[in-house]
């Protein structure tokens, strides 16, 4: 499958809109996760207070990230973990590859990690002759299919079970079945063999506790536990923003994350790993490595609006709630991080000039902000990034047609603003509009059918290219009020 890029969101989205199979698969999300989340948050007394707390903890952490990171490192090292620092994805991949090679390992088992996806760790491992085996069911399915995840929590959400069954027939050689239990049991059988031979396990990190040096990883399947306890070396790739100050803070985040992500009170397993075993006879790895990765994150600290992006705990709730994501799915975003949070993180990670369409991939309805467990104001972030693009800080010459169009748009909106802020000019304006619109109104709407509009009023033309604008009413509210409201008309 051809990988989509963030630069072509408009195109990707249009293709996705015409994919009925994808829509069937995505319908599950709204039906399932949205309802389950609502039920789960009802089991918390003060959900709003909890969100406030989480946001305060994250803000406190980010404002002193240098201190909390240093404290985390000190305590993790004291407990026997080895810390590595990576400025970018390339460095992080190289650190992991060197660690795997030190073990003389030719394959590694991997637990689902968005950080790993972000830096394309699998490709880097393969280039070095190391076979990465994904062990999360969804992640394994898309690895077999040669695709990328389309959702932060359920990576294969874009696939129907028929499509998944076909992949199993082709890649694993089983009889075709649409029985989910059979597909699951097959996965268990095959991956058990890989777990038995693996010497190195690679995982991500959900939270790193500064106070104790603990890393915590959540899951439901048990593959993360196998990856981090059956192998001889455990390598955890951790974004520098994953640190939280106190062990007790876990109480807050463990209440928020599963409820927001999958609608569970708690996921089936949490692994809390504090350094390495002291007694050689105990189960568990001989060494634990934590790769602390920046990869564009520290840059986001440079402004209070962009800093919020680092509070994200990767629950996926904003994807499930987003009317755009629900229609186009994750791949259209052309990035590891899809949906509303992806639309704000991707441009900051890969450079806004490479993802200029993403901040516009939203209707600014605010559903994402509403469900975000750490109260990230995603619409504010989207507008901030849009402003960066229109200000030209995002690059591009003054003559580029995109900038010209946006300039015309902003000028037109300024004029509308002036005209509509005075009573007299407003009245005059609507009267004029009523006469003028006779040229373009069809069935009471200014739609794309009226091609003339695009030539007459460029910004309105862009607006009506994909949707209808309501026509101005034949009589204004003021006029109706003057005549008495009972005389409708």
């Amino acid at each position, binding site marked *: 499958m051809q990988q989509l890029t963030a630069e072509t969101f408009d195109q990707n989205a249009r293709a996705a809109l015409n994919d009925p199979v994808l829509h069937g698969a995505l319908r*599950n*999300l709204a039906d399932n996760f949205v309802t389950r989340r609502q039920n789960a948050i009802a089991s918390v007394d003060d959900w709003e207070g*909890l969100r406030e*707390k989480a946001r305060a*903890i994250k803000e406190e952490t980010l*404002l002193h990230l*240098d201190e909390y990171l*240093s404290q985390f490192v000190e305590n993790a090292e004291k*407990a026997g973990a080895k810390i590595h*620092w990576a*400025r970018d994805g390339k460095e992080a991949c190289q650190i992991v590859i060197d660690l795997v090679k030190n073990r003389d390992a030719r394959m590694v088992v991997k637990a689902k990690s968005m950080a790993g996806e972000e830096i394309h760790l699998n490709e880097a491992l393969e280039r070095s002759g190391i076979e990465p085996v994904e*062990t999360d*069911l*969804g992640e394994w*399915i898309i690895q077999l299919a040669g695709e990328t995840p389309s959702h932060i929590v359920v990576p294969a*959400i874009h*696939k129907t*079970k028929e499509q998944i069954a076909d992949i199993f027939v082709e890649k694993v050689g089983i009889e075709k079945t649409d029985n*989910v239990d059979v597909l*699951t049991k097959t*996965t268990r059988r095959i991956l058990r063999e890989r777990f038995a031979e693996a010497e190195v396990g690679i995982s991500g990190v959900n939270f790193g506790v500064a106070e104790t040096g*603990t890393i915590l990883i959540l899951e*439901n*399947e*048990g*593959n993360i*536990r*196998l990856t981090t*306890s*059956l192998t001889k070396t455990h390598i955890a790739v951790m974004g*520098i923003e994953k640190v939280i*100050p106190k*062990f*007790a803070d876990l*109480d*807050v985040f463990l209440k928020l994350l599963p409820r927001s992500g*999958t609608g569970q*009170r*708690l*996921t*089936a*397993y949490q*692994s*809390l*790993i*504090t350094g390495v075993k*002291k007694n050689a*006879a*105990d*189960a*568990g790895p001989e060494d634990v490595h934590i790769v602390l990765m*920046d990869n564009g994150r*520290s840059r986001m*600290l*440079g*402004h*209070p*609006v962009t*800093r919020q992006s680092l509070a994200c705990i990767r629950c996926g709730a904003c994807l499930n709630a987003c009317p755009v994501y629900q229609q186009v799915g994750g791949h259209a975003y052309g990035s590891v991080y899809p949906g509303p949070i992806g639309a704000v993180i991707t441009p900051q990670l890969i450079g806004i000039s490479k993802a200029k369409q993403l901040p516009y991939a939203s209707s600014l309805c605010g559903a994402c902000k509403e469900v975000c467990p750490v109260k990230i*104001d995603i619409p504010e972030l989207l507008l901030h990034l849009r402003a960066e693009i229109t200000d030209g800080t995002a690059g591009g010459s003054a003559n580029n047609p995109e900038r010209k169009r946006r300039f015309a748009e902003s000028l037109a909106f300024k004029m509308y603003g002036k005209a509509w802020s005075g009573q007299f000019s407003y009245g005059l304006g609507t009267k004029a509009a009523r006469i003028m619109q006779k040229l373009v109104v069809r069935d009471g709407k200014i739609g794309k059918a009226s091609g003339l509009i695009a030539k007459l009023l460029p910004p309105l033309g862009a607006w009506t290219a994909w949707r209808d604008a309501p026509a101005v009413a034949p009589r204004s509210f003021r006029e109706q009020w003057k005549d008495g409201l009972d005389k409708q008309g």
Partner: protein
Amino acid sequence: MTTAREDIIGSIRRHLAASKPFDAVHREHAGGQAEAVVNTALPAENLADVGTPLDNFGSSASLLGIHFEVAANVREAAALVESVINRIGAKDIAISDSELVAESIETIETVEFTRDASTEFLFGSDLGITSAQWAIAETGTLVLEAESENHRLISLVPPVHLCLLEASKIRQTLGEVLTLTQGNLGHAMTFVTGASRTSDIELTLAIGVHGPGELHVIVLADR
């Protein structure tokens, strides 16, 4: 040449400094929130009014599909363990080094139990028996401390996990357990809430994907 650590910490400080002039304005704009609060302890929910820790653990467990039984004493627990063994027809059984487990299987003579099982044995086994250090009533969670008992793999690899739990180790909330365990954190602590599960195929629930597909909890009421 600077190290990666110096560069990253340097970049963090530089960007935080650059943000300073905007921070106050933004805070005011966002509704005048004061600087972040550090004290984050949650008020303990008063579950005691609703039920005992044991009752609450039981209702959480049944919601999760955990096979939950209460034994009055070790003798009753042994009978319950034996009935689980018979029902699933377990032959290869791995046990942890827990004292409570040893006591509970002492009288069972129909099968053999393997202590210090190898990984190979675990992969072919039918049942793993462990105890738990703590439990959380509000979520139906078992807390396994690897430093206290060698149950890290025995609770994970076999297709069925049976856990013996002393009633006095059940706490009402997650917060209480976090406070209890923080001072003495071992290298690994695992929270187990129900059987292994996945919804990765069309969000259809499937049980037992990588971890145990069945979880049995037997609580000893007298301990």
